[in-house]
């Protein structure tokens, strides 16, 4: 085994310290007794209690979760279709425009996406609320799903699909029984990506939400704009904890699946 050099060890340690230190501090100070976030006054879980009694936050959290589930599901269907068309669809009219529309939202500043969608909703007379946030989130999430799924589609052996077709499958059957199981990990990560992007989005939601449909990031933003609040620290810690559990368990399950597949391949 090659040993890690002194230089590389230092850069990794410093790099990861930089990445994690602010979040660790945030979590530690969420257990602070004092209202002043920068002064330690002893251990307490009172801010978590306050948080769960705060109806406005709970309502916003519920709106956010519903928006995220619906929009990431829609985005997964549309994005997978888009990826399939992009990679397997052959040539068709306006393909360059199509792939441009897939890649552009990935890097487009949120303020532009949000403004343009809001102006569209007003132009067609759609009242702003949960529906408009869902439409907006589906639009940018489907592009992420399309990119994740298409990279998986590019890398897998096309002859498997062709074999299924030769053996008498309809194209749809071939997709369902051959292609879909193979790209399933990418489809699932696409869904998760869409879900987190939707949970996280402040700017686009601010443009497209109505007064009755405040999402959690909008609530957090208006609370922290002026200063630091221990209640927000508690909320942030819960969110960080959920994401950490989610990412770790997802990576363990995919790793297990990969190991199992390798064992099966070796056995045959």
């Amino acid at each position, binding site marked *: 085994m090659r040993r*890690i050099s002194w230089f*590389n060890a230092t*850069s*990794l340690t410093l*790099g*990861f310290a*930089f*990445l*994690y230190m*602010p*979040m660790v*501090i*945030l979590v530690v100070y969420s257990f602070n007794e004092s209202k002043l*976030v*920068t002064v330690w006054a002893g251990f307490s879980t009172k801010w978590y209690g306050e948080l769960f009694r705060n109806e406005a936050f709970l309502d916003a959290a519920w709106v956010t979760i519903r928006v995220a589930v619906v929009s990431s599901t829609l985005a997964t269907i*549309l*994005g997978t*279709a888009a990826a399939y*068309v992009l*990679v397997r*669809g052959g040539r068709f009219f306006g393909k360059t425009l*199509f*792939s441009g*529309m897939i*890649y*552009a*939202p990935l*890097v*487009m*500043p*949120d*303020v*532009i996406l949000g*403004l*343009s*969608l809001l*102006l*569209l909703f007003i*132009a067609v007379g759609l009242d702003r609320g949960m529906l408009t946030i869902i*439409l907006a989130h*589906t*639009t940018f999430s*489907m592009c992420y799903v399309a990119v994740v799924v298409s*990279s998986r589609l*590019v*890398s897998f052996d096309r002859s498997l699909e062709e074999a299924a077709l030769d053996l008498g499958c309809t194209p*749809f059957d071939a997709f369902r029984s051959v292609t879909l199981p193979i790209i399933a990990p990418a489809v699932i990560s696409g869904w998760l990506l869409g879900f*987190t992007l939707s949970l996280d989005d*402040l*700017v686009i939601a*601010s443009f497209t939400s109505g007064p009755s449909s405040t999402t959690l*990031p909008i609530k957090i*933003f208006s609370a*922290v*704009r002026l200063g630091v609040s221990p209640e*927000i620290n508690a909320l942030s810690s819960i*969110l*960080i904890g959920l994401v*950490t559990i989610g*990412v770790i368990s997802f990576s363990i399950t995919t790793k297990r699946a990969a190991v199992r597949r390798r064992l099966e391949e070796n056995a045959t």
Partner: protein
Amino acid sequence: MKRIALILLPYSWLVALFLVPFLIVIKISLSDIALAIPPYTPNLDLSAGWQGFKDFISQLDFDNFVFLTTDDLYWKAYLSSLRIAVVSTLITLLVAYPIAYGMARAPEEWRPTLMMLVILPFWSSFLIRVYSWKAILANEGLLNQLLIAIGVIDEPLLILNTPTAVYIGIVYTYLPFMVLPLYSTLEKLDASLLEAAEDLGCTRFQAFWLVTFPLSRNGIIAGCFLVFIPVMGEFVIPALLGGSQTLMIGKVLWEEFFSNRDWPVASAVAVILLALLVIPIVLFQRNEEKQREAEG
């Protein structure tokens, strides 16, 4: 038949919710502000047919764009966004390169874990990660407490609500976007090339500079675009960490829309921002497609 349906479904969704909204933004940027709902004129009256369309076109003008050139707030905001985006992209590259390099040279069984450690912050909330710096950088914050305690400074440094805080926030939140593409090119790099360079008399640094660095070009390009383009229109970081003295165009657009309620000017700001970003976005897309073809 099914193929056409499969193409049409995502295609028409993107046309309706991505392309058409842009045309509307362009249209409104050419309209005038009005005390009405929606607060601009003219509206395209489709029932009036061709005459209505001609009337509509004749009422559009470039007044908003002229207005943007007369008020130096906008010029300064575009230039300062450009400067912040360029400088912070370079700093992010300098910070990310050693991390990505260390990951690519780490023992193979560590790499998936290191990879997960880089991705984890990327999955947690952007807003929360920016917010976490507020408590650190404030005047009575932890960084100043630490520096005073170890005797480096006597007076607290003013960092929060200055451009410095914005740079820190950008480098911090965009770091994974730079590390991941760099890592994926560095990992594929053939180690025997470095050995060959050293056998031929290069020092380690020369080998890095003449072999590793040029070969990681694709990752550098992809990472820089992934940081530069979104930072140009960044709103959350300057709003939370920059205070009133950091001018960025994303924040100007936001305020023009939500505080001044001047939709035509907000749209004109968006059109110019997009025009500035078209070239990097197209280059980024070319780069991505080239890489996809190379892999496929």
